[in-house]
């Protein structure tokens, strides 16, 4: 659905009298399949928004190529515009307009006739649970309501792909969960959804596949589970008394599913395993047979932050 090769963009910035070139995006290759939620994860300033704006025809790339929904980005941006929807990060509604007016106008900007535009607006208002507020001015809406209007604007013309730039930034937890449901609903309707986010949990819970971006480059790409598994495997923390730790270590060290075994100071073991879910019952059985009592068992799955840390050498939370 989206295919990019070597997409590049630099900006010239001026500090005093000196011109400096900033390479915002340095050669991005992406392959996004139809009907998936694809997430672009990275810290602020990584180049996510710049890439998105290039794909949405808002800025021209300096180099590289891209095909979006079958249309060539560089040669036929007008066709790309017809096939995609784009929802910007900072909002896109006018304070003194109503949601209905905005939806009708936006549909008509895509060349949709008046009557059809009204029908679509009505349908979108219902789908996003906005009918109640449809004729109030946008400035009276809550953050979550306004964001829903903006997403509805982005898909009013039934695009095959919709780009959502940080769709949940600034929303309270409840509106955020609500927004996730809306995004999943779009996927269920067959739309390809491309989002950017700097929230780890969002990329993890919402996206089918993600690309991790840092300093203008994609440093990792895959399913959230796959990426996490790739870096380290999962870790089991087995809580034991100091007295029994040695014996337990001897027992478990030879088990085939244990990739690595370390003892923890003050009692307990730290086991690196391929898959925690299948390892837990085996560990329990083994220790039980030997009559060793354990105080706790805890499964620690690597997070996307661990992935980011492995790939970039720093934590996403710090950058």
């Amino acid at each position, binding site marked *: 659905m989206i295919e990019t090769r070597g997409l590049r963009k630099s900006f010239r910035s001026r500090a005093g009298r000196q011109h400096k070139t900033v390479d915002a995006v340095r050669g991005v290759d992406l392959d996004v399949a139809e009907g998936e939620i694809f997430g672009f994860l990275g810290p602020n300033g990584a180049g996510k928004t710049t890439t998105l704006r290039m794909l*949405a*025809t*808002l*800025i021209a790339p300096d180099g590289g190529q891209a095909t979006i929904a079958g249309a060539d980005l560089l040669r036929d941006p*007008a066709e790309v*515009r*017809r096939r*995609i*929807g*784009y929802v*910007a990060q*900072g*909002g*896109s*509604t*006018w*304070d*003194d*307009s109503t949601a209905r*007016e905005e939806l009708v*106008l*936006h549909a*008509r*900007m*895509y*060349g949709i006739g008046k009557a059809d535009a009204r029908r679509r607006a009505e349908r979108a208002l219902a789908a996003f649970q906005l009918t109640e507020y449809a004729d109030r001015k946008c400035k009276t809406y809550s953050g979550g309501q306004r964001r829903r209007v903006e997403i509805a*604007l982005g898909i009013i013309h039934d695009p095959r792909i919709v780009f959502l730039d940080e769709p949940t930034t600034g929303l309270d937890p409840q509106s955020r969960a609500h927004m996730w449901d809306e995004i999943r609903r779009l996927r269920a309707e067959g739309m390809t959804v491309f989002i950017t986010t700097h929230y780890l949990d969002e990329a993890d819970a919402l996206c089918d596949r993600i690309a991790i971006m840092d300093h203008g480059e994609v440093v990792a790409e895959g399913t959230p589970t796959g990426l996490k598994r790739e870096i380290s495997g999962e870790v089991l923390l087995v809580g034991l008394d100091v007295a029994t730790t040695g014996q337990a270590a001897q027992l478990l060290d030879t088990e085939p599913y244990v990739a690595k075994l370390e003892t923890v100071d003050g009692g307990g073991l730290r086991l690196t395993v391929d898959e925690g879910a299948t390892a837990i019952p085996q560990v329990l059985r083994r220790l039980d047979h030997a009559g060793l009592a354990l105080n706790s068992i805890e499964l620690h799955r690597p997070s996307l932050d661990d992935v980011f840390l492995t790939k970039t050498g720093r934590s996403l939370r710090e950058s």
Partner: protein
Amino acid sequence: MKFARDTWLVFQRQTQLLLRNPVWVFVGVFQPVMYLLLFAPLLKPALNAPTQAEAYKIFVPGLLVLLAIFGGLFQGFGLIAELRAGVIERSRVTPVSRLALLLGRSMRDVVSLLAQAVIITVLALLFELRVFIGDLLLAYLMLALIALMTSAVSYGVALKVKSEDALAPLMNTVAQPVLLLSGILLPLTFAPGWLQGVAEWNPFSWAVDGTRALFAGDLGNDKVWQGLSIIAVLAAAGVAWAARQFARSVR
């Protein structure tokens, strides 16, 4: 066809929003009326005009051109607010014509200026101004072209500077000499030779002369076609330039 439809769409939206804000409608009418009521009475003695009607013939066209210039030049502020709200970016991801994004807005400015002009003309009629309808329509065409140019330029500059803080001083700096050198408030016939020489290079000075000739019923005056042509060319250039800014503006 698509272009005309897109322009109409933008025009409709902008007009609707303008009318929704009664403050602007009120200010737009109130200001020129104040000029007419509080400033114009000084003119008969100042210009040494034989009658009040003669004084109005000189002052009203100047006032109308003034409104057209200023009305247009400050439209960019509204656009900066739209930029900030993300409305422009939202329009730019649709296939809507870029020229229509500009022209729809400028057309609203032209129409609201013409509405002001009609109100002022009607009021001036009460003060015994007399002008032929054909001449008046040509004068309105001149005003429309001026407003089209100044509003387009203002939008283009707004897209370039993207901040009110930069736009305000810039527009004031442009507007002030343009105003003083166009003989709007007082005709430049009173000016010393060097000042007249400088004013020759001000296109608005030609526009004011042309409009005054029309109000005087002097359709055959060369200033009329000269003023109209100069302003028409500049308006076309201004629109072309500003439309390009709409096509490539970033955020």
